């Protein structure tokens, strides 16, 4: 397994790191969309995420990583249970699955196992990337260049949380709940609004304009390549500390409260910006609580709202051909009126 660059060694890019941290504290925020040019460290950051996630308990041998404590299990586990199998559990790392731009539909949704059909003459479903990503992360680089039919499919699956396959007389349903992480360069194509809406938070990354930061990035990268093991050892403490922080934030999350005044403010903000639907408000609420938990606070405040609003709302604004400014600017303008 290739070693990944440590998350805590990533220089600057605070907004991207924050969005990813929040999605690990509260997965129901609904994923992160990262816009930016090539070579800004998007992929590095996402790959480094795997090491931050505490391992999860799964039914041993289940291709869908069923949670042994869950009320319902997938069809495969149910079948084993019915057959009198004793299901065991073990800990595995949370999956972070890479979905390449050129993935075929078969590889994404799964297909019949050709090999078994040929050698044993039986029909067996071979799970695809959606199964692999269940209870974890699905990362799509260049999400804005994805084929339309795959976009449709992802929109559908991420809404329902399950993948339905009807093939050759097989009819399979399996859980497919994952946090979607997409990255892309908006200059190469826009993303459909329906797809944009599937992402909870969005960030815009640029190469740090501060030269010292740039130099730092290259020095660290260089040190990592020269001796990855030594480099990782150097960051072991900070990685562990960050992991602890994620864990304690998760525990704290359930107790975080939001005052009515802040909720009212959030609703007003969405109305003022003209974001469609309730999703913006929901994301704001969940995101604020996660942010408060991450800060070690008991209560989400207007300050949290102010920090989170650009991340939660900027990709939900409707196009305004008469307004030249970027959506980030538009969000900030309205925020300035509010605070």
């Amino acid at each position, binding site marked *: 397994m290739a070693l990944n660059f440590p998350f805590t060694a990533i220089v600057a890019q605070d907004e991207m790191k924050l969005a990813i941290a929040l999605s690990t504290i509260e997965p129901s925020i609904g994923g992160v969309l990262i816009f930016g040019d090539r070579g800004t460290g998007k992929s590095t950051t996402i790959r480094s995420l795997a090491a931050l996630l505490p391992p999860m308990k799964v039914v041993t041998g289940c291709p869908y990583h069923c949670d042994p404590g869950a009320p319902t299990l997938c069809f495969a586990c149910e079948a084993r249970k019915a057959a009198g199998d004793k299901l065991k559990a073990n800990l595995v790392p949370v999956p972070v699955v890479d979905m390449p731009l050129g993935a075929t539909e078969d590889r994404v949704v799964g297909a019949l196992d050709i090999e078994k059909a040929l050698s044993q003459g039986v029909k067996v479903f071979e799970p695809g990337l959606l199964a692999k990503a269940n209870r974890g992360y699905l990362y799509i680089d260049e999400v804005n260049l994805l084929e339309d039919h795959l976009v449709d499919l992802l929109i559908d699956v991420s809404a329902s949380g399950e993948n339905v396959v009807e093939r050759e007389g097989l009819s399979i349903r399996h859980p497919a709940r994952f946090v979607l992480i997409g990255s892309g360069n908006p200059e190469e194509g826009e993303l459909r609004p329906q797809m944009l809406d599937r992402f909870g938070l969005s960030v815009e990354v640029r190469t740090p304009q501060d030269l010292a930061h740039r*130099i730092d990035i290259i020095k660290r990268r260089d040190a990592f390549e020269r001796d990855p093991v030594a480099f990782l050892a150097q960051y072991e403490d900070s990685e562990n500390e960050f992991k602890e922080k994620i864990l304690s934030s998760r525990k704290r999350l359930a107790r975080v409260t939001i005052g009515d005044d802040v909720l009212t403010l959030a609703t007003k903000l969405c109305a003022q910006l003209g974001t469609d639907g309730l999703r913006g408000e929901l994301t704001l609420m969940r995101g604020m609580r996660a942010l408060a938990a991450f800060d070690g606070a008991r209560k989400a405040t207007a300050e949290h709202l102010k920090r989170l609003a650009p991340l939660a709302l900027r990709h939900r604004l409707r196009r305004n051909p008469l307004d030249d400014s970027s959506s980030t600017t538009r969000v900030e303008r309205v925020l300035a009126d509010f605070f």
Partner: protein
Amino acid sequence: MTTQRGQSTWFDAQTTAALLAIDPHGLGGICVKSQFGPIRDGWFAFMQTQIAPGIQFQKIPLQIQDEQLLGGLDLEATLSYGKPIYSSGLLAKSHGGFIVLPMAERISPHTIAHILQVVDRGEVRHPQQTAELTPCEFGMIAFDEGIAPDESMHPRLAEHMAFEVRLDQLSQNDCTDSLEINPTVIAEAKKRLPEIECDTRFIESLTQSAAAFGVDSIRAGLFAVRAAKALAALRNQDAVTEDEVVDAARLVLTHRATRMPSSREEQGLDEPDAEPDSAEDEERPNEDQSTSEQEQPEQDDSNQGKDSDTDANQPKENMEQPSTDDLEELLIEAIRAGIPPNALAQLTAGLGRANSKQGSKGQFGQLQKNANSGRPAESWRGLPKGGKRLDLLKTIRAAVPWQTMRQAESKVKQSAVNNQRSRIQIRADDLHIKRYQQRQGVVTIFLVDASGSSATQRLAEAKGAVEQLLADCYIRRDEVAMIALRGRTADVVLPPTRSLVRAKRNLAALPGGGGTPLATGFAAVNEMALSIRRKGMTPLIVVMTDGVANVTLEGVGGRERAHQDALQTARQLRAAGHAILFIDTASAPQALAEALANEMAAQYLPLPYINSGKAISQRAAHLARQ
């Protein structure tokens, strides 16, 4: 191109080949921009015999299937042996060697995505589709044969290659000598590479000069550091010295520059708003006139260096360590010298090659689901309804593995299916339909005359029209492009795009003023329209000018000649049969403009009748639908 410059280019090309062989995965690859021919062959032969004999160069065919590329079940072998046979993909087979990408400007984004995912990870999935990954590292050699500016290799792929080599301007004479490199030298350098030190001062300088030239990608800075290390290893040193830093900057950063360092004077772009009467007072962008400013590669015993006739700082071996600032200066000179003179004008105008490199989205556009013509694309599973055509071969391939099982099933079912073993049983799931890569919609090309006093207003209208058209591009899938007439050239200020973000950014930096080379503009617009057509989209041209040309095709001043040229190129537009909207921007309709419009068979509209971006956009949309 002088032979001196040519020869240094040739040596640089050979040096990059050596560096890639020393650190293939770390340096990613080399993009060789050149037409097919003896010089390119010579370079490749040098790499295969002098640098990496016995090492695999795996060609990746343009229309490669995923299974061939990534590995998987070998269907043919499996069927003939009756048991599952897996084969590794070409990428797995290339581990430790190189992949060669012919016609790199035409590789599908789909294939690029797969290749880059492997490059990124240095691993490839086991062909048996298990979770297991096997190490897979290789260097890439891409032969980019694109000619038109929007035909170059996909920027995503270029981003992952440290080097770019341009061989088209070279003559046979430039390429007679070769660097003294042999496989032993490379092998030793490879061994030494992990131990090479690179002073942080150098990392800082390289990062700084990358920033100065507007190279934002962090990957480029990393490539420069790795190239400096590989150079030090090649030169039998323990550590990177100044020389390697300068060379690495030239080899990695030059072709990535998107602007000139701001401290320098802008070069001759502030043209007076008048007719240029001769082209003598300014250097015409012309390769042949360029003086060589390029340094000789400091190859130990192969330096064919003649004294350079410029003041470019030559690092001497025995020079004392200059301060960091001096090194900065040196790097900036080295990179500047490498940028071709004709790219300078573009760069200073804020239209770096990074923009033209974006390539048109023609190759990466959406597929039209019902297209029945165009370039074949990956077939999809689906029913041949609504005029879609069955892909018989793919259908049979999909059906074959299931035959045994289906035969058994139909026996059980006692089905009415005629149960001869020779009959292949096909089910709806097997059906694949052919898809063709056909771009959808219309590309509206604006040709905007940005000269003279009304430039500001005209530009504002054109920008307004562009944004208006883009604002609803989701629905119509249209793209827009813009060519501006400025001074003596016609510049593509916006290659065809559907991205509002990008359009706004490029148009924001659009200055006005200068002469009116109408003929050049018509020719440019014609070329772009034809290339759009080749990609299966419909070009629509919107010309905005008062029709008063004052710069000829040659780029010299002179009204009469300029007007004749304009008429002539207008006739070419008519011959090509493009749909054209001619907007006369003069305050009162001009006979000249109307004559030009008639000559190109355009729809002529004087500005007073059509006075806003919105109106233009509506007209254009209307015309496009005719």
